Structure formats: C-alpha cells, structure tokens
C-alpha cells in the first residue's frame, strides 16, 4: 500500500506550507522527490496517483511533470545508481573511459540494472561539476575526479554497505 508514514507526512506538510493558499500544486516537484525516496527509488503509477490525491490535482498533471524531469525514475532502479556525466567538459576529461569501465565491471550497459538489483548505470548530461571531471552522481552526493581505482573503491563500499544493512 502506497502511503506516507507519519514522518513522511510531516515532511509533506512542511513542503506544502511554503506556498500560498490554493497553490499547493507548486509543491509537486519536491513531493515527487519525497515520494521517490520513500517508495523504493522510483515512481510507479500508483505512487503518482497517490501524490495527485494528496495535492488534490489530476493524475495526468502528475504524469506530465514526472515524465518531464530526468531525475524521476519511472522504472525500478538498482539500490545504487551511478549517474555518470557525459557532456563536453567531462568528455574532455575522459568520461567515456569511466562509463565503459563501470559497464564492463558490472556487466551492464548504460540504462541497465545488474541482475542482483544492486547497481544501475545511467549516462546523464551536465551536472555542474565540470571542474572536477570526470564525475558521477550517486544518491544525494557527487563522486568527483573519478579514476578506475576510485570507481573500484566506490563499488566495493556499496557492496559492503549493502551487506551490512541486510
């Protein structure tokens, strides 16, 4: 059942309270982030319908927005998502090699998730870290100045964390 718990509802109310009366739709983007974080890292139709109900807007208004922005995942993704930047400045600093290296190491192509559901590899466009290229986003944070060794260490750490949390 898709439903925010009390803590999530509190955050939802905090988000909606920022906007004037009757403009609660404005909270849609942050609320979708909250929903994505709360319900398994992606937005199912059910989740979006739930959000539409909470904000008192039609489901299509939510679908339109969720499909427009690239950060909302409309399919399930791995526990860890590697979003590697591939735009100009990162390309100049060798992001292609990094993407290939991650892909080979995990046995997946960009856009795919490993069979164990642990990792998703995604190529993205400029994330605003051009001076620290090549780089990728992992969850809330950036991993910058990537090298093959650094990628190895990140993958190992993810595996370790996942094992510890199970």
């Amino acid at each position, binding site marked *: 059942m898709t439903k925010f718990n009390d803590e999530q509802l509190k955050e939802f109310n905090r988000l909606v309270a920022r906007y004037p009366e009757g403009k609660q739709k404005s909270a849609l983007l942050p609320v979708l982030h909250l929903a994505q974080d709360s319900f398994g890292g992606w937005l199912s139709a059910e989740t*979006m319908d739930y959000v539409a109900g909470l904000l008192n807007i*039609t489901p*299509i208004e939510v679908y339109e927005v969720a499909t427009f922005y690239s950060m909302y995942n409309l399919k399930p993704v791995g526990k860890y998502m590697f979003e590697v930047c591939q735009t100009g400045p990162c390309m100049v600093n060798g992001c292609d090699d990094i993407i290939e290296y991650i892909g080979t190491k995990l046995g997946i192509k960009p856009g795919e998730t490993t069979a164990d559901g642990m990792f998703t590899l995604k190529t993205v466009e400029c994330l605003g870290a051009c001076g620290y290229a090549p780089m990728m986003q992992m969850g809330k944070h950036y991993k910058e100045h990537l090298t093959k060794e650094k990628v190895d260490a990140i993958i190992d750490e993810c595996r370790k964390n996942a094992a510890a949390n199970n």
Partner: protein
Amino acid sequence: MSEQPLFKVTIDNITVEVPAGTTILNAARKIGGDVAPPAMCYYSKLEGSGGKCRTCLVEVSKGSEKDPRPMPKLVASCRTTVMDGMEVKNITSDRVMDARSGVVEFLLINHPLDCPVCDQAGECHLQDLSYEHGKAGTRYEFQRRTFKKHDLGDKIQLHMTRCILCYRCVFTADQLTGKREHGVLDRGDHAEIATYIEKNLSNEFIGNVIDVCPVGALTDKTFRFKNRVWFLKPMDAHRDCPTCSGKVTLWNRGDEVFRVTARKDQWGEVEDWICNTCRFDKKQTSDWVIEGPRLIDRHSVISQGHYAGKVGTHKPTETFEAVHAGRQPKLLMDIHSVSEVNKPEITLSKLDRPAHSTDFTSNKD
C-alpha cells in the same frame, strides 16, 4: 465593457484598424487572403494556445508610432498584440518566408508522410502548409521517430507519429471537459500526447479534440478508413441536442452519413463545440434536419484542388507584387493591371448586348 481604442496596424502594406489587445494574427485575418499567416497551434477559442509551432512568425519592421524601432527577432503573430502604428511584414518579408520554410521542414522531418492512408488527408493543415511552404524533397536521412502505441478507447484514434505537439487537444480537454485525462508526457523530441496509464477518454465533449487537431494525430475511429473526405458531401445539419448546440456538418455520400464534425470557419476553427453523442452516435440522415450544403472555405484539396500542378505552384506571384505596391483589403489581385480586356474606361455592364472586340478597339483610339 468600455470602448477600447482602435489601433492602426499595417500588415504587408495594408492598413487596418483593430481594437487594442488584438494580436497581429487576428488583425491579419481581418485583412484575409495570403496576408493571414498560417497557424498550426493557435486556436482562437482555446485560451493560452499558440506560440509553439512558429509557423505564424512575422517581421515587425516598425514597433509602433511611439517607438518605431523594429523588433530584432521574428515574432509569433498569434501571441503578439498590435501597437498603434505598427508595421508588419508577412509575405513581403524574405526573412519570414525563409523561417517559415524552415519550420515546415522541421515539422516534416519526423512526420511519417503517410497521407495516402491518413484519414486527415485532404483537410490537413500540415498538408496545406507543406504544399505552400515546403520543398519537394527532404534533407532528412535518418529514421523517423516512432512511439509506443496508445489506446484512447473505441472512439478516438491516436497516431502519435503524426502529432506536431500543438497542445490544442490538451487545452480543449482542460477548458471543455471538467477533468483532463490526457496530456503531454516526456520531453523534447520524445514528448508525446498520451494518458500514461492506458485509459479511455470518456468526457462527453472529448470528441472535439479530433476537430481541433491540425493533423491526423487524433482521428474519428467511427470514420476510420471508411472513405476519403473529398468524396464526401459536407452538409450543415442540426438536431435538438440536450447536451450541445446540435449544429454540425454531416459528411455524406448519397444518403449515408459517414461522419459528423463540428462546423468549421474559414480558418478551420470549430464554430460550436459538439458532444460525443452528436459526433459518434447519430449516423442516420433521419437523426438530423438538413440545412444545406456546407461551403468548405479552406484552401484545402476539398474545395479547390490546387495541388493539381506540381508542388509549389500555389505561390501567388502576382499577388506578391500587388501587395508590395500596397493593395486594397480583400483584393488579391488588381484585375486591371493584368488584363488587357478589363480597361476601367469600358463599362461592359452598360452594354445591352454581348461585348464585341470592336468595343475594345474603338475605345483605344
């Protein structure tokens, strides 16, 4: 409402007076003929429509009487309001014609060009536009865009590949029906009209999205592959409808009603929205009171067959010259300037017999 001041605006050397707040496009429509820019996304009855397709771009060569500076960029005439003393160039501007041909090319590169199997053929605005401003060949050598198929129910057929993303159907659903169920999903060149989760469009006025669609993206499933529009006879008819005005156009062949649409004006815009019952369920002549033949006043194949020659023949060259010199509104061509026969000094109507060649020669001396 208080009287609005009238603004003078000159479009392609023709001056009209329109109330303040009128758009350049509507001022040009007042003049009529080729001076009116084509519009693929603007729809006067849909609030917020327009500005997107860029086919109606015009050049503002003089901003206004107060501020005569020209506007640096071409502007969307459907969303730019006139200023007093404004001067606009549409078909007299090479920049405009060049940009417009570019827009047509952009609209066509991913269009399937499946007119032979498209129900919209013959009354398609994109067809008209490309015959008038397009090129015979294409410079696009890549695979055309395709989409996953979406089912909108048993009444409305969606062909996303033909869509030009004018947003008219979205505005229609927003403004005509209480609850919109379809919209524009995704972004950029993958943006599409869809419902996200497969869904029938069910509102009783939703059928109007078919009429507002400028292309064959949304067509009438009850008419699908039944006939070609140019074989059908449009007849105005009405019925006592509890939901809508009941004023429609029937598209008949013999006594058979092939489809029902709303009545459309010369710009292809719906005059009165009609309900789904009138559109989809009343297909017997006996359902209707026939008023008479409907004149289709669009520059489309139905009424003119101006595609008879080779592509591009519609360029009204005489008109361009006449327009350059400044012409009277509504007069596409000054007959006197191109005809040896119709000299102004001969008043043929005053002869009480058929005119003879001597009537002209004698006058020359």
